[in-house]
């Protein structure tokens, strides 16, 4: 049985490699991940970049390194060249008794202020421990906008699993190869699992790659995989149903696209609805998956909450499965 499932999987991968649309589906998340990384470079960066002189006092350099990303240069000329490059870098060089702050002029105001403040604090010898304020943190360590984009990308990738399955089913239907499989010892369950593996594994791998590209390699991978696999199940069911219901590739793609609606709705609901109204989204498994991923990506997730979310996804998926199962069985025979 296992051997046969593997065969179905390997054959599907082979076909996928030779199918343009399938390749596109596989590479879209990776391209999008690159796009997010390229076009939102500042999103990940809350630190300020400073350029200092190597000849500066070690105490100054050390102090600055605690609060900013510090680059060191040989002389004033190199420092100025660096400042004039495109990104926001503020140079601080010793001058007389004090310091001189060198700006290109177009830097973000916050960056300017922050650098100046930081230098002043050094000059008066202040440390974080000197503060009289109590510190209250929400624990967010990753900027929310980028997390949101990457989370959306993960949702999309999960959906692509369904698209891959639908595509592969439509092709099997068009070529009538399902009938040929139905007169072998391969069981229908084996067929379904083998096909699911293709969509599931391909999109899991895509998610992992996308998270690495976008700089989320520090997340709890076990949680990522757990939420990924559970939310994938629904996508797979939808893929099977749509694949069996559609007569060609275009129709299947259109049908699968229809589930963008509840997904988009769930994301918008999660991001925009106030806590009081969040319950209105509880019906949607995509909501729970998105919620779990949001916490995982912003590194605030704990196991009980993640398990609750995946549990909800599973229960809702199971409900869909029982509605869809007769359709899938019938469609495959």
């Amino acid at each position: 049985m296992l051997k046969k499932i593997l065969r179905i999987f390997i054959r599907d991968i082979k076909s996928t490699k030779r199918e343009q649309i399938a390749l596109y589906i596989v590479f879209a998340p990776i391209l999008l991940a690159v796009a997010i990384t390229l076009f939102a470079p500042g999103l990940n960066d809350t630190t300020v970049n400073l350029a200092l002189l190597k000849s500066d006092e070690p105490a100054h350099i050390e102090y600055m390194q605690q609060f900013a990303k510090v680059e060191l240069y040989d002389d004033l000329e190199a420092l100025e060249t660096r400042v004039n490059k495109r990104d926001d870098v503020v140079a601080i060089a010793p001058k007389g008794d004090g310091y001189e702050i060198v700006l290109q002029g177009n830097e973000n105001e916050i960056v300017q202020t922050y650098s100046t403040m930081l230098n002043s604090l050094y000059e008066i010898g202040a440390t974080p421990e000197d503060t009289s304020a109590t510190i209250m943190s929400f624990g967010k360590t990753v900027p929310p906008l980028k997390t949101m984009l990457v989370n959306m990308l993960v949702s999309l990738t999960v959906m692509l699993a369904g698209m891959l399955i639908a595509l592969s089913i439509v092709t099997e239907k068009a070529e009538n190869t399902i009938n040929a499989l139905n007169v072998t010892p391969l069981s229908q369950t084996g067929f379904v699992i083998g096909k699911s593996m293709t969509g599931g594994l391909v999109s899991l791998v895509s998610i992992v790659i996308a998270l690495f590209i976008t700089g989320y390699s520090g997340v709890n991978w076990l949680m990522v995989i757990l939420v990924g696999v559970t939310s994938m199940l629904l996508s797979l069911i939808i893929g099977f149903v749509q694949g069996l219901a559609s007569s060609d590739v275009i129709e299947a793609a259109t049908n699968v696209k229809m589930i963008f609606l509840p997904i988009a709705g769930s994301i918008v609901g999660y991001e925009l609805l106030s806590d009081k109204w969040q319950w209105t989204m509880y019906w949607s498994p995509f909501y729970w998956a998105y919620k779990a991923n949001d916490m995982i990506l912003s590194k605030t997730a704990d196991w009980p909450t993640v398990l609750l979310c995946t549990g909800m996804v599973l229960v809702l998926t199971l409900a869909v499965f029982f509605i869809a199962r007769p359709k899938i069985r019938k469609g495959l025979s």
Partner: protein
Amino acid sequence: MISVKNLSHSYNKDETKAVNNISFEVQKGETFGFLGPSGAGKSTTQNILTGLLKLQQGEVTVGGFDLKKVHNERFNKIGVSFEQSNVYGKLTAKENLKFYAKLFDVETRDPDELIALVGLQGKEKVRAGEFSKGMKHRLTFARSMLNNPELWFLDEPTTGLDPAIAATIKDIIREQQKKGTTSFLTTHNMFIADELCDRVAFIIDGEIKLIDTPKNLKLEYGKKLIDIEYVKDDKIVKETLKTVDEHDKKRISEIVNAYDIRTMHSKEATLEEIFIEVTGRGLV
């Protein structure tokens, strides 16, 4: 090997039956033919026997397995060649066969050897999507032999193939017969039925009209026929008449006496003519 009792099938699950209350048995080692025109219900019957269509009504056992129960392992002993070829266009001929072979639990034949057997040598590494219809059909046919089936289902095995290739396919089937393979073969081609089948069932409108060996059928129904061409009103007229029929005999002497005879041949009836006589309809 196959036992069918009172099998009926309706696609719309109503009174219109694609197969209507048919019964027959196929013995071990026998090649059993279903001969009938397009739409007679041949493929429907084969699809029920191979489990592709759900058994609705009737008692059917195939290779000792009751079709009412699910036994996927029975397919280790069964080979199926489809009327419409169905192979993976994105895979090469050889990849198609290799993939399929892995789905069986029994020893399978060498894909290269089978590809050569159906005359596709040199095309092993060509994707099936680039094949002509006939080539795909041959690949589908070759695939049905992968698991050395004891029971072989052949739906229109030579239809749409050019005569030379059809002859190759016939030779392969004969070869398998010698090895003792039991075959269920459907065709609307009387020559195929005549040449390959031990017994033939005439099927039309979902009903079996008779079952017998081609030889018996010819003995029983194949009364001697005479084709006569004669000239009447400056035109050539052709008639086929039976030498054993009183009315026809009179007609023959009438023609011989009254007209100028061009040609006159006696011949044995073909299966098609017998089919027409039994069912009242032709094979197309």
